[in-house]
């Protein structure tokens, strides 16, 4: 850990819930309905409007709208699942997420102001919960997304216990 040796952040220890990719796909599928409506709209417009230089643009738009959700329905969730990792030590939270852009976030527990967890209706169907850790910085909000419900509540309890024990005013 000397300053001159090549250094990287190691992978946080834990993966998110195994049901997370299914949840991401389902959420994407719901979004895909909107893309499909747009695609149909473009196709209908291409058929109804008299031909012109715009016709091929409309067909192209329809094609793009159909293809737009495809990555999110197929390979992206598994990539994200491989990258999404989290770890809570006695000192800090470390979260890694993203797929094209990968983000590492580290927040020391002594500076955590609030800990809460959220669950949307769809997440409830999958038994998932997101833990949210906020600090005194508006740039310092860290989310551990899509944990198993029970585990998420356990993590919240652990974080609350540790942060309550550190008396600093967190700024």
């Amino acid at each position, binding site marked *: *850990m000397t300053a001159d040796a090549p250094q*990287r*952040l190691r992978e946080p220890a834990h993966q998110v819930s195994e049901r997370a990719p299914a949840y991401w796909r389902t959420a994407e599928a719901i979004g895909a309905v909107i893309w499909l409506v747009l695609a149909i709209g473009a196709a209908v417009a291409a058929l109804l409007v008299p031909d012109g230089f715009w016709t091929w643009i409309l067909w192209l738009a329809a094609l793009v709208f159909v293809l737009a959700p495809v990555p999110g329905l197929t390979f992206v969730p598994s990539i994200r699942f491989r990258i999404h990792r989290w770890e809570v030590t006695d000192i*800090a939270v470390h979260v890694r997420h993203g797929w*094209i*852009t990968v983000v590492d976030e580290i927040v020391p527990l002594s500076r955590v102001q609030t800990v809460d967890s959220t669950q949307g209706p769809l997440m409830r169907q999958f038994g998932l919960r997101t833990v949210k850790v906020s600090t005194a910085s508006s740039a310092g909000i*860290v989310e551990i997304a899509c944990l198993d419900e029970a585990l998420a509540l356990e993590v919240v309890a652990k974080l609350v216990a540790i942060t309550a024990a550190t008396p600093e005013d967190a700024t």
Partner: protein
Amino acid sequence: MSTPEVPEVPRIPDADWQRLAGWTAIVSPLSTLRQAIIPAAVGAFGAGQANVLIGLLVALGIAAVAALAGLVPWLTTTYRVTPTHLEVRKGLLNRTTLTARLDRVRSVDLSSTLIHRALGVTKVNVGTGVDEGQITLDSLTKDAAARLRRELLHAAPSTPAASGETAAATSVEEAPPAAGEVVARLDWSWIKYAPLNLKNLAIALGGLAAFFGAFSDVIPWERLIGIRVDDGEINGRPIDSLLHMLVLAIPLALIAAAVVWAVGSCVGYAVRWWDLQVVREQGREGTTLRRSFGLTSTRATTVEEAKVRGATSTVGPLIGLAGGADLNLLTTGLDDNSPAVLPTAPESVVSAVGTDILGEDAFSAALTGHGPKPRRRYWFRAAVATLVWTLVALVPTVLIGVFGDAWLWWIPVVVMVVALVIGLVGAELRHRHLGHTLTDRYLVVRSGSYTAVRTALQTDGVIGWRVRQTFFDRRIGLAQVIAMTAAGQEYVAIPDVPLETAVALAAAATPRTVSGFVE
């Protein structure tokens, strides 16, 4: 409900609830009116054109509502300082009690507009924790405000015996305003930087545009300027015969505008920064910094020095060429958490004052650059931007050429040259400015292209890290790093830094937090 004269049974009988200054009843309607004056004037004028009586009634109605609204704070707001807390009660229908622990009070900000000053009162903003916002008392008499400031920040840790009377009107008079140590004082030679401030120029132009926008219907342009435009003719003369006059008129107008700007900006600078002083005083817990300035409206802001998390030194494009820089603090609990310590001043002054406040010379510490990769990236981006601008310029040129039969080839060429020069100079500056280092207590970062910003943030003030790598970042091993903090704009960005350097830097700045996650 609105009978605050009848005191509710206080929990601490000795600490009396205090009223706002009596003049509040006049100040707050006036300041309410001041905000409403332009819409009111426009409204009244609009109505008055139709019917003078209605116009007058509209104006009177607005004044009456403002006056009534302004009375409410004076009738309903009371405050007191107990040995441990500042308590403020306010509100007419929703009575609220704001309580702030004295040891959490970080700043006291006294500001007076011209109206306040004419009446000898001042507005008090008390900054406490981070997100609870500020407690505002508008307005107190000058004496009461000064006393409140001393009680909040400077009173010695109160002994239980004396504590009961801290809020009594006479008990805190003992200390005459302690003669503090002067950290900085306005030097009139700095006024040369005023006309170079492009940001203020933009603000002034925006204000001018807004003013004429609001009143354009009302202003009798034709009578004012003496220009009457009829189709094809100006003041009865054909336009063609006037065009050659523009060659003379435009430079003259520009020179006139420059003179007006130079004089106006200097006057504005003088009025705003009049009698600036930055003074260090002994506070309740450690030292405080007080910055006071202003000719017409005055401002006196006091912050606990221990809560100053760092500072930034900003070198703008023209100002930098003239050897100037801006110094701002990184604080928490003010309404502006990057308050300017000084107006634009010579870099040596900024460096000296910065060193004094930071406690070490973080502003002239040598920086580690980020290697050749960011530079290649910036040059590439400048090239792409040039290409895009050239293509954008090409479209109208081709359209004019095809339909208008005039091939104005010089347009895209000029655009390309200008974009290339601005882009490449910007890229090179961005590369040169990029850097970071770690001093005893500070993380020092510099970034920016035409405007260079050097930030010194206490490593104790870092409350987290975010290391972002886009697809392209990962290919060349760069990272976009953010040090999270509660102070200033709440983060310090370290752009385009090699990943290994970034991790080493984070681990060195906050070893306890980061080192467990490094391999």
